[in-house]
């Protein structure tokens, strides 16, 4: 499939999905569809590092929450008030504080741009998560592969601690983000949830497009050499550290972008929901079940598992459906290590021979 044809097909598919939702009068389709698409972005982002390079990221929830909280922080930001910057050093207790004075920064010139539109928040969330991904990678990717995985696991706990202690974004109490009921576009009123759904649809298309482009580029071949034999890659002159950092940054940024519209979707964001285990486990389980190493695996896994979970949450319970995901993950890595896509491919090859 040529790239231009692929883009056309992707746009046609996205348009068809959107047209299909227009036929349904029920808004629930948008709420459920948004979550499924969000998982498409997360699974695809995870696969860029995990599937292509072979480095496991357990902190998807952290990157996702970073995006969401960047959006909350910018949402709450009021350029009318000057920013107070205080320089102080505190040793152990308040009594030993040294204050070096406070400065007021006038930021009222920013007033015309605020409140920022959601696409700008998505970009901001992507930048923040990308930077954190880069920093984490820089510290841990020079060491043995498992150190990176462990550090991402711990990252989620620590970022949650920071957010819980940060009052500006609501702390442990959480933050309300009131979204308008409708959005005016060229004089038309469209329900806000449709707007969010459309944004997430575009983001999902973008993520899949990026993953597919990487897969077929020099970059993707470099990633594959790291996954298959890092030592041999290094020896043949592949700049492994640089490539790994690129993968971590892209992957983290996409996860942050998926998180940025979330506060507007959910309306009330609290640390335990933003850092929910569901994000971490799903963004690993979906590519693993769909098949790692290709762009189509995470897409299939996310659409399949995401839809099953939406149905199971309504009909059974949300705890049970997480248990199902966990069991499926373990079952697939043991029995079908190449996922559904790998399994089907194997069957097809067996038939041909």
């Amino acid at each position: 499939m040529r790239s231009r044809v692929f883009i056309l097909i992707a746009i046609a598919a996205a348009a068809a999905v959107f047209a299909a939702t227009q036929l349904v009068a029920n808004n629930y389709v948008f709420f459920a569809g948004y979550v499924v698409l969000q998982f498409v972005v997360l699974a695809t982002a995870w696969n860029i590092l995990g599937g292509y390079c072979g480095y496991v990221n357990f902190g998807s929830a952290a990157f996702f929450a970073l995006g969401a909280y960047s959006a909350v922080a910018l949402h709450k930001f009021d350029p009318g008030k000057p920013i107070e910057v205080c320089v102080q050093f505190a040793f152990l207790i308040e009594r030993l504080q040294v204050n070096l004075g406070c400065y007021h920064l006038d930021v009222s010139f920013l007033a015309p741009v605020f409140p920022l539109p959601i696409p700008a928040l998505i970009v901001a969330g992507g930048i923040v998560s990308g930077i954190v991904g880069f920093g984490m990678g820089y510290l841990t990717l020079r060491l043995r592969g498992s150190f990176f995985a462990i550090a991402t696991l711990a990252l989620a706990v620590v970022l949650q601690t920071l957010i819980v202690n940060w009052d500006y974004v609501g702390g442990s109490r959480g933050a309300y983000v009131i979204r308008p009921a409708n959005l005016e576009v060229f004089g038309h009123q469209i329900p806000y949830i449709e707007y969010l759904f459309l944004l997430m649809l575009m983001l999902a298309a973008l993520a899949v497009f990026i993953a597919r482009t990487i897969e077929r580029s020099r970059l993707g071949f470099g990633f594959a050499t790291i996954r298959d034999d890092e030592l041999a890659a290094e020896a043949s002159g592949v700049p492994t550290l640089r490539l790994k950092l690129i993968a971590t940054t892209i992957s983290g940024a996409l996860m942050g972008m998926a998180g940025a519209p979330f506060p507007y979707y959910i309306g009330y964001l609290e640390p335990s929901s933003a850092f929910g285990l569901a994000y971490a486990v799903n963004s690993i389980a979906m590519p693993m079940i769909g098949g790692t190493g290709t762009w189509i695996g995470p897409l299939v896994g996310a659409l399949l598992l995401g839809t099953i979970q939406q149905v199971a949450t309504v009909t059974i319970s949300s705890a049970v459906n997480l248990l199902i995901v966990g069991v499926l993950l373990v079952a697939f890595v043991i029995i079908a290590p190449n996922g559904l896509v790998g399994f089907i491919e194997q069957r097809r090859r067996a038939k041909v021979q």
Partner: protein
Amino acid sequence: MDFPVELLINAIIAGVLLGGFYIAVTVGVSISFGMLDIVNIAHPAFIILGSYIAYIVNSTFGLDPVLVGLLMLPVFYALGAAVYQVYYLSFEKRGQEALRGLAFFFGILFITEVALILVFGVDYRYAEAAYIGPALRFAFVDLPYRMLIPCVISLAMLVALQVYLSRTFVGRAIKAVSQDQGALALMAADPIRIKRIAFGISIATAALAGAFLVILQPVEPSVGREYIGRVFAIAVLGGLGSLPGTVIAAMLLGIAESITATFYGPSWAPAVAFGFLLLTLAFRPSGLLGR
């Protein structure tokens, strides 16, 4: 400026006792991650499982939690050996431990937590024993028994393990298996069997650690996640595979967390372990006593 010296001394002593408990929590990972190169991120899940078993037996039969922990040792050893067998056949044998092996342990961690939530809910559970509550007091220093007992038994367990690993044939084989499997096979020791034994021991320590945990604090299923960062921070800081290093690192983290909790508030304590981990990885990835 009056610096609260008494508060600081109490915080340090509480930290040492906490560090003793962290030894029990970490020693299993020091063996599995440090000596066998198995990244068992599900270790805290086994600890929580131990806590819940201790809680159930304690609340229904009134048995002492530490005694339950000791009785669970063989059960957890068998569980660990079984888990290793699955891990070996599915991942190590096929050379897929890096990506899929990690996902496997993550799945176990996740399944345990969700299953415990489904069965017990998210209520906090705690054990009852005579020594939970009273404390030894010297002048202004408090030594609560609930922290003293886990600390002493953990240290005893560590000494026993250290003697076992350095004096017996199997113990030495465990230390050797990560260095050269082929050479070990030539010494008439089956590397897979040795690894199975070592992983069994590593999970068995989780039974005791779980019993200590339910004595120390009320337990709910997601508590385990807080220990992932701590456990690996200690194992890496101590120097992978070094049990004396584990003791030093556990004490250091315990003291640092205790001081943080005393002077800045307990909600900051989880961040300390991560700071330790990142600093270690950045400046001395081989740890304090690492080779």
